[in-house]
């Protein structure tokens, strides 16, 4: 299953695990922005080195990362090939119709491959070491400045946490509905457009009505517990900024400056 958010968290007690989710989220974001600026071998090497350090500090075995990349490998290769065949300039080795291969396109293809790997790996570090709920919490902290513009940050965060909480529940219900329909002889895997439509309706109606019932029940339960608004809520887990976060930010900022220094202008 192509799952990028759920069921990937691995409990642990490493440096990366114990960092606060908001700074992990922001560092991830920062790393991706810095990748934008990389444009030669040295900058990519610096960033790869930083990534290797991060992976080692997460304490997660490298196998999990490889397992995460495997389903994407064909896609990456295909995109890199597109890049190689469709870019222009440089010394041309071979060309046919709109396709051409040059030294410049090969180098760029290699860079894009590294780019893909770096972005996928850093986000994998985030989801392997942070629970979805902690990520939602991080989003709330990161978006807090928007409160000044009356953006309902807390409501959004609460909504997101409820949604994340119910994804596995809905997934289970989905499984039940699928099996129920299969036992009645519905074939989901094949058929014409007409067949597909006929198969989709008895799948989606119960899923939607189930979700509506959950919303109704949850509202009643929340009211019974005195829920009035999402702004003045207390939290079971409070993630505080720690020295670890400061040190990590220091390292990332240094690498960022180094990349700006090393890039070709």
């Amino acid at each position, binding site marked *: 299953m*192509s*799952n*990028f958010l759920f069921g990937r968290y691995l409990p642990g007690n490493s440096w990366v695990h114990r960092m606060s989710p908001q700074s992990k989220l922001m560092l991830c974001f920062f790393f991706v922005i810095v990748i934008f600026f990389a444009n030669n071998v040295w900058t990519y090497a610096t960033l790869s080195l930083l990534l290797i350090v991060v992976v080692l500090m997460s304490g997660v075995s490298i196998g999990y990362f490889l397992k995460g990349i495997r389903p994407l490998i064909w896609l990456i290769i*295909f*995109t890199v090939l597109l890049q190689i065949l469709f870019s222009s300039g440089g010394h041309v080795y071979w060309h046919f119709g709109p396709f051409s291969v040059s030294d410049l396109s090969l180098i760029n293809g290699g860079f894009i491959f590294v780019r893909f790997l770096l972005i996928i790996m850093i986000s994998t570090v985030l989801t392997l070491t942070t629970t979805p709920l902690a990520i939602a919490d991080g989003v709330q902290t990161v978006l807090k400045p928007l409160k000044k513009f009356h953006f309902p940050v807390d409501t959004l965060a609460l909504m997101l946490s*409820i949604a994340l909480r*119910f994804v596995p529940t809905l997934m289970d219900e989905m499984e039940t509905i699928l099996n129920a329909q299969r036992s009645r002889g519905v074939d989901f895997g094949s058929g014409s457009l007409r067949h*597909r439509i006929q198969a989709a309706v008895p799948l989606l109606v119960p899923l939607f009505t189930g979700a509506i019932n959950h919303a109704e029940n949850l*509202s009643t339960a929340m009211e019974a517990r005195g829920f009035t608004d999402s702004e003045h809520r207390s939290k079971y887990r409070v993630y505080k900024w720690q020295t670890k976060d400061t040190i990590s930010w220091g390292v990332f900022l240094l690498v960022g400056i180094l990349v700006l220094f090393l890039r070709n202008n």
Partner: protein
Amino acid sequence: MPVKKKTLRLNMLAMFIAIILLQTSIPLIGYIPIGPLEITIIPMTVVVATVLLGTVDGAIIGGVWGFTTFVRAFVWPTSPLAAIVFVNPLISVIPRIMIGVVAGVAYTYLRKHLKSQAASISISAVLGSLTNTILVLGLIYLFYKAKAPQLYQINIKELLPYLLGVVGTNGVPEAIFSGIVTPLIAIPVKKIFDRTNH
């Protein structure tokens, strides 16, 4: 808004977000492969949300889908197209928000002028789905004609016909599918929704 209504709305939105997240991560209920094409049925979910909860909430749900597409384009792209195109937040988010807006406006208008609820939902769904396709196409064209800075420096000019072809050929069956299936789902679900709301 009374607290009870507010809480219910919050939870309804949360459930629709959960459904969107589910649909983007499980291919079986989010995407339907037909021959070589893979059409998405997520616009249909956005239209159902719009019909049940109103235009603003539909736009919010569309925005959530757009944001998910945007993040995924970096960390877990579904196709080379996504990796190249949807890394631009304007292309990934705005068309999705507009699905809710267009479908919502169309539905409110049609509900007043058409007798049949099914027809109004169907037309709004087709319009919503087409809005998505046309805006994605239009924005790709605009951005890559102007040579905006890109994450992957691919020569888009050569690729443009291919990109437009892929999105276009997906868009038409998508609109047809939305037009047929959305009323079939929205009407029974709306019945249950109205029952719990009163």
